[in-house]
């Protein structure tokens, strides 16, 4: 899948701005704050919205000129459930298969197999209204697989689920990628999810890609260093200035009750910070070294925390 200067404008507002992206056979994550343009991007890629400018090829077909072909080759799981809760899992899946014109015998076999994959085979003939949130999500995901898509788009697949259900959904998503060899494009709010699940990520902000790469690459690209979280009993301004000026410090950010300090080498920096603060009359409460997370990356490139 590849986009070519894909752009979408709503009046004066540019939601997606000449965006170029290439996704291989992988699990790809799209991250971004609300309103960053990732939903608009995805809606264009799944052919329900026509780009103002530029285009993209999805599963080898052009999203504007060959929308029909694209639709035959992709699966989409939207954030809001589109299951018919009055119907059984079997009926839901069967109808979906019919939309794709899959012959009856093939359809039935495929559905049985897929329901087994997500552990819903024994509940196939129960109305979806009686399912838990996690079960509904799992059903919705495998429903999109009835048509054997090459690419599966998942929009916030675990939003609103409890941790256990979330873990189960993620496990199935991973298995789907491995066993069925399907390219996955996932938008998510959960950074840990993106970090564990995705081979590569793109962070989208203001309609553009601001960072792209594997989770490890992204983290390395930002810093090449470590993060130190320090809390203080007292911190005179002289101590703060001294820290900001110290040659081993890359960046200092204030937060509630303390500082987040980006340094070149964590192990060497900790004792240096302790003595520097001490020399300037400050008093440390705690000091801890931790690894860089995607949230730090996100904060760095967008200036906002995704958790807000």
């Amino acid at each position, binding site marked *: 899948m590849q986009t070519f200067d894909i752009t979408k404008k709503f009046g004066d507002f540019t939601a997606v701005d000449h965006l170029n992206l290439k996704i291989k056979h992988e699990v790809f994550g799209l991250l971004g704050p609300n309103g960053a343009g990732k939903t608009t991007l995805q809606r264009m890629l799944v052919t329900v919205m026509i780009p103002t400018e530029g285009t993209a090829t999805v599963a080898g077909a052009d999203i504007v000129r060959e929308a029909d072909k694209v639709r035959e080759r992709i699966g*989409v799981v939207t954030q809001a459930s589109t299951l018919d809760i*009055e*119907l059984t899992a079997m009926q839901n899946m069967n109808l979906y298969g*019919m939309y794709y*014109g899959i012959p009856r015998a093939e359809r039935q076999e495929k559905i049985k197999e897929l329901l087994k994959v997500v552990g819903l085979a024994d509940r196939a003939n129960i109305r979806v209204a009686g399912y838990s949130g996690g079960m509904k999500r799992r059903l919705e995901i495998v429903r999109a697989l009835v048509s054997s898509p090459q690419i599966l788009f998942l929009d916030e697949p675990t939003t609103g689920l409890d941790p256990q259900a979330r873990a189960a959904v993620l496990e199935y998503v991973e298995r789907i990628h491995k066993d069925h060899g399907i390219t996955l494009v996932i938008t998510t709010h959960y950074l840990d999810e993106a970090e564990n699940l995705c081979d590569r990520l793109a962070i989208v902000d203001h309609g553009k890609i601001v960072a792209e790469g594997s989770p490890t690459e992204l983290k390395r690209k930002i810093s090449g260093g470590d993060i130190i979280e320090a809390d203080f009993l007292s911190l005179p301004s002289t101590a703060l200035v001294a820290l900001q000026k110290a040659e081993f410090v890359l960046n200092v950010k204030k937060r509630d009750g303390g500082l987040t300090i980006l340094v070149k080498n964590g192990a060497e920096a900790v004792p240096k910070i302790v003595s520097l603060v001490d020399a300037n009359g400050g008093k440390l409460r705690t000091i801890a070294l931790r690894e860089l997370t995607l949230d730090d990356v996100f904060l760095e490139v967008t200036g906002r925390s995704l958790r807000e």
Partner: protein
Amino acid sequence: MKGALAVCLRDIQKFLGQPVLMVSTIVGPFLTLILLGSAFGGAITHAPIAIVQESFGPYSSNFIENLRNLQTCQFGGIDCQNSFQVTDVADLETAQQMLHAGLVKAIVYIPLGFDDALAANSKVIITIILDNTDPLSAAAIGPEISQAGQQLSSLVQTTPADSSSMTFDLEYAYRNVLYIEFMAPGTFVQAIMFVSIIAGGVQLVVDKERGIIEGYLVTPLKKYEIVLGVLLSGVFKALFSAVTVFTLSILIAGVRPMSVFPIPNVGEIVLTMITLFLTALGLIAMMTAYAVRSTSADLYRVTCFPINLILYYTSGAIYPLNGMPVWMQKVSVINPETYAVSALRLLMYKSAGIQAVIGDFTFLAVFTGLMLTLAIVAFRRAI
């Protein structure tokens, strides 16, 4: 095409999975039929009337006897009961007070010299005073008293009558159709309209809000297949409800269409079904067009209520069109339900055949064509 059938199948499976919704599209119109049909248009029985008798003789006592024995079934009542409950009152003034107090609905005044005049074969007048603040009772009672009088005049005519007297020979072309039968076709159309509103239109608005329609669009389904599927399932559901109300009206409400009784006439039944089908397709398409243009389900529901009222009451379903003010008649001319009700009545109570309903069919077909175009255009634009 297969896609349209899949969309249609989905809607029907959902409909069957919601028995409450299904039943409610039947219960509403059927209750209207039973309640309105039984409450209105029944023959008035045991109407209290006062008789002020100043002349005593064979003619007047015969007339009063006729009044006492008059039966409602002579005027199309379901079972035979006395039309009047007669009270003898001594003088006109007392009778008028009784009328004023609401104790009687009418006064029959037989003046002094009545019997003598009839015996002499000269002109006589019986005065009937009606309480016309109750127009429906007054309208029913007046002719019934005259009926008793006619029986009397036939008696009078045994004496040599003057050659100039004119008599009318009133004949009924068909059996008496009860009011409940008269209004039954309107309730079949109501059933179709209810489905168009709650099962067809609202479901579409809700589907749109829930993103189901967008969900359709990421599949290879074509837009025309989606519209077609939605319309097809709507017609199926509407016919299901209308035919159920039709059957119940025969089984429970005592409606006796000539097309079914005494011998079922396949041709007329087929024409009845065609009428229901055309009506269903037209109304479903109309409400579909309206639903996809609606921005919210709430707004849609609120506005559907008056639309349904206007169409129902101006269709002639419960009262003859000629009895309506001009502005309502104007609405009825462009109201599809008018033509549906008219065709259904012709087929059900006259077995009138295709040539009688061809005009109604033409209107319904044109209306349906128009609404289908509108629905498809609206659907394409909104989605």
